């Protein structure tokens, strides 16, 4: 009668076995037998940064955080550090994990605030040293009211229009459209261009290389020119100081630029969006400036637009990298601008994100820098493993002492759970980059107890049922029917705790919460597909089913006079016990 609900325990066990074999087979194919260890177990530096918005209330958005992470990735890769892992964590943390000890300079480098600047381009060359092309500054024949300030005094106008004049054909353009070809008629903007423009010709013709503080009047001196000529893009990115000229490379490192001092700061941007304009075909990026930023932008575009095509580039520089260098052909008033050109959607979005980030740059607090020596890492790993083995041993000893033969079930179940957990940790490390940290190991060890507790709940329930007068084999089923609800409820609470911890907590808590949650899930799986079927099978054996003294199910142990459905052990004919322990006797 009991067999009606014991839905083929053997088959369930085989399925679990197959799954395990599959998992280990994948491990064998991937040739990864060991979990990915965290830096606190193998030595290395972990930097935890807390991002804070410079403007605004200090909260950062997810976009800003991702952009900040990208910037830090570039810095770390630029510093030539291999194997570094940069990840966002929670709502405002970025962790940088670098194997190997002592990365003092890295901490400084990584923690800097990345700022966005707009700079005028004075020269552009291929990133690798190439023979300079003939200057081909072709005047656009613009009806200019003032003499072009920048082109005549330039000592080496090595602009190559072919490669760099308007990279990808990008250009700044006014939102107000083609209706404003000349800025002068515009009412609001009339006073503005007049201010810088007269000053420019006054300053430049007599002493061209003198930099009088106004970035619009900047002219590179000889030293800067030399530095620019010597620079190649495979060198680390230079320090981006807004007041000074900058030698910078494009993102793909194909072109190097000589840039003037910063004209506009990213914070003078108020918004940037990528989109396709109504009636337009291609992607473009729309920018809005703050009031002051809009004026500066108008001044700058007025000045730059007077340069010849090819030299009229206005670069967007983030963290020392020239993100984009659109050309300017006309002054752009109104505090709004567009960057147009042959954008793909992702290019446009990337650029908009960079600009948005520039508008609200993020500063970093160095929250924690942990440098673990490989030796301490090794010590911690071995301590974790030792603690795990001792804990496991104690649980097994206790199970055998208290539950006797059923201790075997505990051991086998724990082994199955351990195998499943190990495979999951290894494979998650391979596929999702999950790293096992010290607190993760602690979570695994704590989980031994939680897993074994499920068995305790079942076994105690089983014994209760026998005490209530059921036969052993029916107790296995009725006890399970009740125990499984308790186990599910209790495990759900554990899982909930792990989930809340994982989502909300920071730092090493995550590793702990992850392994705890993972093992709670595995515990549920094992109890259902391994422990229960195994007990069902064992209950059919003579040893357990007849309540052998060592089985943990003997009458005395259970506190009943005898197991229902069978004779007292003493009365039982010793030799031929063909009787099956069938429940439900009369």
């Amino acid at each position, binding site marked *: 009668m009991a067999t009606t609900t014991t839905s083929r325990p053997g088959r369930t066990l085989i399925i679990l076995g197959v799954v395990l074999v599959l998992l280990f087979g994948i491990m064998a194919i991937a040739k990864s037998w060991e979990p990915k260890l965290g830096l606190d177990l193998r030595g290395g530096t972990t930097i935890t940064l807390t991002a804070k918005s410079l403007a605004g209330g200090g909260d950062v958005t997810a976009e800003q955080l991702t952009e900040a992470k990208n910037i830090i990735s570039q810095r770390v890769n630029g510093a030539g550090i291999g194997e570094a892992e940069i990840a966002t964590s929670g709502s405002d943390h970025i962790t940088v994990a670098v194997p190997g000890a002592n990365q003092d300079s890295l901490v400084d480098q990584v923690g800097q605030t990345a700022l966005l600047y707009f700079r005028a381009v004075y020269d552009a060359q291929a990133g690798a040293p190439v023979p300079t092309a003939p200057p081909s500054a072709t005047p656009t024949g613009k009806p200019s009211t003032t003499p072009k300030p920048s082109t005549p005094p330039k000592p080496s106008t090595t602009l190559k229009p072919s490669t760099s004049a308007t990279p990808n054909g990008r250009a700044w353009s006014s939102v107000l459209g083609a209706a404003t070809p000349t800025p002068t008629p515009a009412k609001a903007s009339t006073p503005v261009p007049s201010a810088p423009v007269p000053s420019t010709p006054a300053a430049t013709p007599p002493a061209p290389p003198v930099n009088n503080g106004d970035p619009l009047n900047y002219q590179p001196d000889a030293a800067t020119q030399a530095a620019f000529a010597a620079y190649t893009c495979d060198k680390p990115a230079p320090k981006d100081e807004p007041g000074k000229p900058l030698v910078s490379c494009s993102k793909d490192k194909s072109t190097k630029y000589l840039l003037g001092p910063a004209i506009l700061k990213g914070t003078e941007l108020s918004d940037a969006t990528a989109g396709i304009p109504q009636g337009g075909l291609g992607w473009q990026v729309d920018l809005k400036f703050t009031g002051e930023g809009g004026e500066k932008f108008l001044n700058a575009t007025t000045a730059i637009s007077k340069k010849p095509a090819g030299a009229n580039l206005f670069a967007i520089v983030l963290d020392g990298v020239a993100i984009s260098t659109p050309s300017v052909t006309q002054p752009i008033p109104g505090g709004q601008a567009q960057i147009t050109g042959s954008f793909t959607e992702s290019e446009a979005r990337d650029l908009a994100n960079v600009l948005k980030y520039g508008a609200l740059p993020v500063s970093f607090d160095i*929250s*924690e820098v942990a440098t673990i020596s490989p030796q301490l890492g090794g010590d911690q790993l071995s*301590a974790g493993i030792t*603690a795990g083995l001792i804990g496991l041993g104690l649980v097994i000893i206790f199970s055998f002492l208290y539950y006797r033969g059923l201790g075997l079930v505990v051991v086998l179940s724990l082994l199955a759970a351990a195998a499943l957990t190990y495979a999951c940790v290894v494979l998650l490390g391979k596929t999702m980059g999950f790293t096992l940290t010290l607190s993760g190991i602690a979570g695994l060890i*704590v989980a031994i107890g939680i897993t074994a507790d499920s068995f305790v709940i079942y076994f105690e329930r089983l014994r*209760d049922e026998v005490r209530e007068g059921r036969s052993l084999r029916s107790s296995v089923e009725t006890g399970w029917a*009740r125990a499984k609800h308790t186990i599910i409820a209790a495990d759900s609470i554990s899982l909930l705790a792990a989930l809340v911890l994982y989502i909300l907590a920071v730092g*090493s808590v995550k590793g702990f919460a992850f392994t705890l949650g993972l093992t709670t899930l595995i515990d549920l799986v094992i109890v259902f597909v391994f422990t229960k079927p195994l007990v069902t099978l064992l209950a059919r054996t003579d040893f357990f089913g007849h309540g052998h003294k060592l089985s943990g199910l003997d009458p005395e142990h259970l506190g009943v006079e005898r197991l229902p459905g069978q004779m007292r052990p003493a009365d039982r004919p010793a030799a031929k016990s063909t009787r099956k322990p069938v429940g439900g006797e009369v």
Partner: protein
Amino acid sequence: MSKLGTIGARLHRGEISYDFIGKRKIWFAVSIALVVISLGALFARGLALGIEFKGGVEYQTSSVKITDDTIADVSSAVKATNAKDLGDPVVTTIGGEKIRVQTKPLDQADIARVTDAIAKELNVPTAQVSTSQIGASWGSQIANKAILALIVFLVLVFGVIWIYFREPKASAAAIIALVHDVFITVGIYALIGFDVTPATVIGVLTILGYSLYDTVVVFDKVRENTRGITGSNRYTYSDATNLAVNQTIVRSINTTLIALMPVGSILVVGTVVLGTGPLKDLSLALFVGIAVGAYSSIFIAPALLAQFKEREPGMQALRRRVLAKRAASTSKAKAGTPVAAGAVVGGGSATDVSRLQDKPKSSGATAGTPTASSRPVRPTSGAGRPQPSRKPRSKRGK
């Protein structure tokens, strides 16, 4: 051990029982006292916050030969670096061959110099000195997130338990017991002066899940025992709850012991082998918390539940009926010595008590009131078939 098993069986039958619920006032008083002491200690002494909460730099190196002068030597070597805002470095030895130095927050360059100085003084390679540099706000960030996690968790758990037991009172009892556990654990930290580090915070948060695990197991049995209880007048809600606690106490003790074993081994290994660090801090908090959690899920949570439930009019009516009947039966039978929990009324038969939720029993000394009629007949188990009824021993063949 087999004796223990027998005790389990006798507890199950209600032959021996401790009146957890009847004596709840004593245990509530004990708990209130503990919580008050904890809060007092927390406010009076505060927590010994680790460097993670104050900000600073910690250097640690192992495999060092430690002599009597080591601490003074290292201290002066660190001071000799003249790092800016160095303050007084705190040098401690851990175990037989580890040195830990703590300084105030320093520049990156100074950290490197102090690291070099320590390495040179102790004659170890620089790479063997582990450093940990913590910003001043890191600890408060962790603490804030922990408090947020705590609140979110409590709200969610309240909902989950409510849904599972279909009883907000169970949620309330469980949560009060849980908060009680956290207070006492924190109080023990304040009293003894254990270092509080982020790992401790993880530990305390994990207690949440664990303490509830036990409570849920006990409540599950309470629910089973009290199912359809108002249809009978043999047990009050408190009686049934008390029986549940007694029936699950072996389970509670076993699950607690088994949970404590791995945690204890982390604690011992973490302390002996590593001396200090996240393993020790985490496991200490867990160890204390799990122990307190076991206490609360046996003595406090079910008692609270009974206290809440006994206020319901239905349960009060039940209590009056049960007491009236007991009074009547004692005067009639003049024998029965009414103890609180089961085993009493049924007059001997072990199965009476444990089956009180299973099906109405018609036999026994309690006959007279038609208890069976008001109780719905339900399938008794997941097997979905009627269970064999057990005949009195005298009628059973040997």
